[in-house]
């Protein structure tokens, strides 16, 4: 019965070893206790962490992001590295499991002592990473368009926030004279939040929402929901479906006899990577992004060429991978402006403003306050080669506004409550 004394000892240890409690004076210190950075800058390399799902359901999307990050790291290294140090990247697998994202973030920050982490795709993975980078005062660069209404001193967002993708899409629809809109999305935080914003803005624009349907992320069967679209007969369908569920939706849409002529779809998650899996059935529909492979900018041809020559290339370029590519260059720009790899120095450099990256989508500027970047709004129409013909572009770059402060139709109490909750 040795275990009993052992347990008793443990109980004593537990009680003796208590740390700070809520309301303690020590609490304020505890919040930053773990913040001591362990970034090693003594050698001639700098460690960065890449965190993408290489296995599990999201591997279908995130593998490309991981590959393009490798390409960007190779490019920067060939060009002399960051502050004269070669990038040594540590690739971790998030395994499509949000707690694994949290665990690997902690590992990268506290065990590997990386200077920054790049990756994530779903909003859920970002929300799993957020508390961990904040607690350890690390840096996380997130490359995918998302639902906005978030900001963190420890996260930089190189994908679009709502006012750079969804609001331009709504403006485009309004300009086309759309009167009725049907919302179809996957059942998780991005579509739910995006649709909440769409409904608010639609009311402002005088567009009627004639239906709203959600299907679990990993389900392909959309037949019943498409029947509802047929019955509702909307002018346009706003599609916030993510992943392979899109294929099932497009097939059901096509089979039901819906066409881009009668009931066009505008998507925010179908890009050059995803479109080929839907074949010709998606042709003629629209997508709202910031970057398209067909974009005519000075940097784009070189980017496409380098990517197509890269060994792990998927052959096409798309918005999320371009945003991931930007994220590494944004970090380079920040570290060089700060002259340091320390998180606080980098945030200080960001706050000073004027950080730009000459990206494939154009020269993007970092907003030092909300850590998002300016982006051009573009709407593309899918052609027979599963590429996008650009049908609309914003006047210049759109400044990021994650809390929609420039839009008075967005309820101020929601904004205030969210800002207060974010601290």
């Amino acid at each position, binding site marked *: 019965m040795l275990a009993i004394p052992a347990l008793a000892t443990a109980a004593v240890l537990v009680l003796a070893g208590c740390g700070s409690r809520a309301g303690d004076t020590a609490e304020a210190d505890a919040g930053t206790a773990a913040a001591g950075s362990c970034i090693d800058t003594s050698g001639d390399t700098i460690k960065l962490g890449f965190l993408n799902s290489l296995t599990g359901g999201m591997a279908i999307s995130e593998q490309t992001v991981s590959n393009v990050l490798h390409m960007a790291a190779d490019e920067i290294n060939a060009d002399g590295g960051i502050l004269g140090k070669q990038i040594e990247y540590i690739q971790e697998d998030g395994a499509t499991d949000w707690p694994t994202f949290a665990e690997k973030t902690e590992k990268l920050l506290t065990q590997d002592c990386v200077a920054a982490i790049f990756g994530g795709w779903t909003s859920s993975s970002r929300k799993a990473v957020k508390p961990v980078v904040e607690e350890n005062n690390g840096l996380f660069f997130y490359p995918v368009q998302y639902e906005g209404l978030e900001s963190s001193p420890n996260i930089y967002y190189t994908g679009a926030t709502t006012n750079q993708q969804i609001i331009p899409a709504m403006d485009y629809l309004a300009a086309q004279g759309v009167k009725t809109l049907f919302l179809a999305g996957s059942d998780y935080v991005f579509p739910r939040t995006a649709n909440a914003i769409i409904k608010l803005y639609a009311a402002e624009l005088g567009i009627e929402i004639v239906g709203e349907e959600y299907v679990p992320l990993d389900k392909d069967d959309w*037949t019943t929901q498409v*029947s509802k679209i047929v*019955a509702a007969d909307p002018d346009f369908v706003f599609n916030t479906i993510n992943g*392979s569920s899109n294929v*099932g939706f497009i*097939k059901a849409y096509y089979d039901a*006899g819906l066409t881009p002529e009668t009931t066009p779809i505008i998507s925010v998650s179908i890009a050059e990577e995803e479109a*080929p899996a839907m074949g010709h059935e998606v042709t003629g529909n629209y997508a709202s992004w910031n970057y398209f492979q067909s974009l005519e900018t000075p940097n784009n041809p070189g980017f496409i060429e380098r990517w197509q020559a890269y060994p792990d290339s*998927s052959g096409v370029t798309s918005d999320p991978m371009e945003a991931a590519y930007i994220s590494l260059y944004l970090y380079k720009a920040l570290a060089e402006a700060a002259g340091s790899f320390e998180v606080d120095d980098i945030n200080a450099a960001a706050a000073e403003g004027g950080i730009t990256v000459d990206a494939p989508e154009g020269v993007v500027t970092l907003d030092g306050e909300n850590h998002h970047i300016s982006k051009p709004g573009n709407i593309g129409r899918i052609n027979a080669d599963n590429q996008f013909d650009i049908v609309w572009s914003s006047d210049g770059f759109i400044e990021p506004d994650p809390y929609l402060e420039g839009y008075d139709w967005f309820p101020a109490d929601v904004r205030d409550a969210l800002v207060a909750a974010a601290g």
Partner: protein
Amino acid sequence: MDALISPLLNGTALGALLLLAALGLTLTFGQMGVINMAHGEFIMAGAFIAYLTQTVVASSNVSILLALPLAFIGAGLLGLLLEIGIIQWMYRRPLDTLLVTVGVALILQQVALQIFPAQGVPVEAPDWLSGQIDVFGYAWPLRQVFTIVLAALCLVSLAVWLKYSSFGRRIRATVQNRDLAETSGIRTRNIDRITFFVGSGLAGVAGVAASLIGGTNSQMGTQYIIPAFLVVVAGGVGQIKGTVLAAWALGIALSFFAEWTTGSMAQVLAFVLLVVFLQFRPQGLFTVRTRGLT
């Protein structure tokens, strides 16, 4: 009227797809007692074979018809390999077949992810399947009709094969009393292999149908496996008519629940309803009495 017609027809088509997915299981699980969790990945194999056929025979009008027998054979061979390599050592441990095949499923998914483009591949529907027919004012997609016809064809062939062919007789004999069948000169090992081949092959056919409905990618099999097993259990194991009824009922239930609530809630309600149903009829809709020892 439309609110009733469309879920009824959609549900019937969904039920047909579930039936195709479950039909192979009535053989491998129902007749042989093997819980093959890699059945979903055999469905995936069928879908990828449909894609590969299309890369060789460009015309989707022809290739889909060619893909059906090829997927049957391809998935069947995978099943045969599984039977010879692993399952044959496990007939005395039915529950353990579940664990073994979970491992097989994991490996097959990862292999598919590495061989094919991660985003999945397109399988084009043939022209003769694009379009709708009018049913009481509801434009019913031809592809749904195709799924139903395909399921019916597979069902009838399987039933006839089991009931009237000498193979079928031998399978039934082996299932009912292995020792007696062996004594009567039936090579039960061969029967096991053929049954497993056909059961897995049917998953391949289901895969071709699935490739016309959803995405063809490494994860596609996972969404079919649990509903397929539930259908077999609810129908009464080894009972084809029960499986048909259960698949249809589940398809209808899913469609009506999705019509009234949301796609997610439909899943929850249908699963819970099935579990409750099995409380009252644990042996499923129909029962078979075997000479298996308890």
